């Protein structure tokens, strides 16, 4: 398996607060990797640093090319898309416009139309509501739209930040099954979650983040059985 994303000694500070303290991890092509940890552990900060939304120290390599310090929109064009925390759909734009925005950096019109059709087939609720403003959708529909929008970028790899946040268990299952479908279609996944149980159930490997540093890492199944992980993250 080839290495798709490599993060080396990543450091992020907000003023005096050292939010991410020299973490390193890697994601291989085709994998689902999860980064779990409590609120404030530095998960979202790590995601923002990888996508180029904030300045960071250290090295970030995607498909063998350094993307550290690169403008966020260029990183998307290389094939690394992100579904941000809190969905962040464009509430005052229609469902279809949101999806079109996802493909903003692409030029291949015919392929974009095909991808749009495929997403509508997979998510028929969005097709029914394609002309509705995204702000009028339910939380679960907005999350599906946010994921679909990122898929419209035709990414090689997708970063997902807390896709289960604020959703009922049934919707969480729907979202996770969509994520697995995307992975099955060949997209590498880096999933950040507070819902460690769900995340570990679909991931092959996991990293546990605690106050800005990696506390544990390894095989997802093994971590799910680890007594300390069970006590702290799985409520067992």
């Amino acid at each position, binding site marked *: 398996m080839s290495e798709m994303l490599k993060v080396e000694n990543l450091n992020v500070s907000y003023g005096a607060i050292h939010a991410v303290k020299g973490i390193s991890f890697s994601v291989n092509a085709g994998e689902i990797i999860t980064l779990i940890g409590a609120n404030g552990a530095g998960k979202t900060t790590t995601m923002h640093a990888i996508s180029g939304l904030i300045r960071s120290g250290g090295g970030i390599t995607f498909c063998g090319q350094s993307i550290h310090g690169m403008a966020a*929109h260029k990183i998307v064009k290389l094939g690394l898309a*992100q579904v941000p925390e809190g969905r*962040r*759909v464009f509430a005052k734009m229609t469902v279809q416009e949101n999806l079109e*925005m*996802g493909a*903003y950096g692409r030029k291949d019109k015919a392929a974009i139309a095909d991808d749009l059709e495929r997403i509508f087939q997979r998510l028929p609720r969005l097709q029914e509501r394609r002309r509705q403003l995204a702000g009028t959708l339910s939380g679960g529909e907005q999350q599906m739209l946010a994921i679909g929008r990122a898929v419209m*970028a035709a990414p090689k790899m997708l970063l997902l930040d807390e896709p289960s946040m604020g959703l009922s268990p049934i919707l969480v299952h729907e979202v996770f099954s969509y994520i697995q479908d995307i992975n099955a279609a060949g997209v590498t996944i880096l999933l950040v979650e507070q819902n460690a149980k769900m995340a570990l159930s679909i991931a092959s490997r996991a990293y546990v983040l605690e106050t800005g540093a990696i506390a544990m890492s390894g095989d997802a199944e093994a971590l799910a059985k680890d007594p300390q992980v069970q006590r702290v993250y799985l409520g067992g």
Partner: protein
Amino acid sequence: MSFLLQVINGLQVGSIYALVALGYNMVYGIVQLINFAHGDIIMVGAYGAYVVLVLCGLPVWVAVLASIALCVIAGVGIEKVAYSRLRNHNAPRISLLITAIGVSIFLQNLFQLIFGSAGIPFPSMFQVAPINLGGLNISFVTILTIVVTVLLMIALQLLVGKTKIGKAMRAVSEDADAAKLMGINTNSTVAFTFGLGSGLAAVGSVLYSNAYPMITPFMGSMLGLKAFVAAVLGGIGSIPGAMLGGFIMGIVESLTKGYISTQLADAVVFGILIVVLLVKPSGLLGRNATEKV
């Protein structure tokens, strides 16, 4: 009859307010900055047209295009030189606002240095006889101003609603970071917005200078301020709001001049600002302050 004439005059000056207010609102919508240098772009456009028309002796259409080009370059240049660096380093909003006022003072003094502070008469660009509409003699410039403004507004609505760059403008104004994650280059989208607003101001500038043919380095202050009031009235950040606010302001000002007192016109206009801020700070078509995220 005279009432109708006052309304038509109001629509004329309101068209110009609307064209300028659009620039305030589009820029505010996308970077939450009241660009106080925007009024001075009008002045830059007027001098640009004057230089090409009178000093170079070139035809009217060249002067109009040159004025638009100059304003677009000035608008984008101001954004790149003065604002974008502050924004990209997350400077507080007040720093941007003060910078905008600084740019405004700089432009006024620069043009005073080049052209002197005395007013320069602006030549009439369109020497066409007044047109008789249902018994009313209406000047060609009045009709031209209203028609051009309405056409530009339709074009702008199509641009923002249907085109790729228009959708990018809306996406960036709603959530700049999410827009970046879509692969949208927010810096160039913002620059485009500044350019578009400045181009509209240039058209307003040429039309204004034909109606009030005396240009000075300070002509942008009052006009810019009134257009800003129009923007607040319509709803700061809203494109249809700028249009509506501009027309209402123009008509109110014209009717005040016609039926109450010329001297009171400015007081009424700024009185509107106070009333709007007290009663409905978000403006007629503005977004609600509390937004569901």
